[in-house]
């Protein structure tokens, strides 16, 4: 067995054995992964309709594991863009994942854990982890939600790619309200005062305005800049 493989297995083992997942972690994971599985089934169906093989669709979900960029890349390639342009579009959509990884902060204890767990960073896993108070709780929630979400995402893609023609018309449309509900339910527990509320409102406002003209992925990054004035206000108050 190669040493690198053993090291990776050990790192994943440590991550998975952090603590027995709490029931609230499981509820978070089930809520997030159910929606993600349906969403990924839509991706799988669209990919096969666009000429991808079933295994290419599944490989995309397993290796990329980032829905927005997969759909953006698929649409760009299907629309006649060059592979390099489609890759650039997908990468742009995923830039926010770097900010989510940064926000997770102390969840990853060692470099081996960081290398092993980085693939699980998603809007849902990071968002769920950030609702927890301590580093240990964030780590446990992140790993639980991340692994279940990854499984649901990949399995959903396989189902959508294999049985896509049987998927009800408008499935994506009926899923959209649930996706909106997921992130609203995640952000509310984090709003504990006027400062957080003002930041959330400002971030949402900037994002909505930016979404009208900016390419996918950029509005979220611009919305995240709402933390800057909030931090400056705090700094001035402290002085």
């Amino acid at each position: 067995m190669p040493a690198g493989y053993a090291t990776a297995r050990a790192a994943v083992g440590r991550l998975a054995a952090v603590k027995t997942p709490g029931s609230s972690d499981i509820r978070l994971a089930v809520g997030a992964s159910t929606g993600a599985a349906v969403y990924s089934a839509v991706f799988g169906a669209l990919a096969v309709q666009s000429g991808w093989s079933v295994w290419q669709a599944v490989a995309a979900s397993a290796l990329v594991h980032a829905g927005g960029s997969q759909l953006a890349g698929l649409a760009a390639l299907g629309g006649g863009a060059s592979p390099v342009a489609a890759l650039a579009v997908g990468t742009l959509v995923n830039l926010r994942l770097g900010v989510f990884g940064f926000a997770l902060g102390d969840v990853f204890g060692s470099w081996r854990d960081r290398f092993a767990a980085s693939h699980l960073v998603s809007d849902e896993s990071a968002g769920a982890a950030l609702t927890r108070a301590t580093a240990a709780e964030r780590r446990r929630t992140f790993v639980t939600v991340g692994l279940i979400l990854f499984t649901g995402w990949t399995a959903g893609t396989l189902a959508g790619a294999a049985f896509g023609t049987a998927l009800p018309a408008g499935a994506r449309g009926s899923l959209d309200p649930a996706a909106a509900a997921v992130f609203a339910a995640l952000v509310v527990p984090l709003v504990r005062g006027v400062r957080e509320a003002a930041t959330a409102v400002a971030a949402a406002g900037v994002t909505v305005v930016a979404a009208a003209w900016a390419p996918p992925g950029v509005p979220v990054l611009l919305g995240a800049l709402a933390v800057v004035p909030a931090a400056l206000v705090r700094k001035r108050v402290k002085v």
Partner: protein
Amino acid sequence: MAIWFLIGGLAVTTYLVRLGGVALAARRGAKASGESRADGMVALLPVALLAAVAATQVAPQGDVRPPLLCAALAAAVAAPRLGFLPAILTGGTVGALITWW
């Protein structure tokens, strides 16, 4: 070939973006943990990020869609009282009903 290039390239760039964020957080290091974690931008970053992602769900391409807004508001009201999963179900149901209606 173009499809595999996209999949492989996106897998690599996405992993590097994720790892870059995590690595930056690690470089911030121990001095960012503890009390200082609650301060400044890093403490507010999750709020801003999640609010921004929620906004993109409610208003795709900047166009606010009433069923999605109602779903998000219903989930936001329900989350502190009922918990995460019931809040999603409540919001999703409200949004779906308004969509169909």
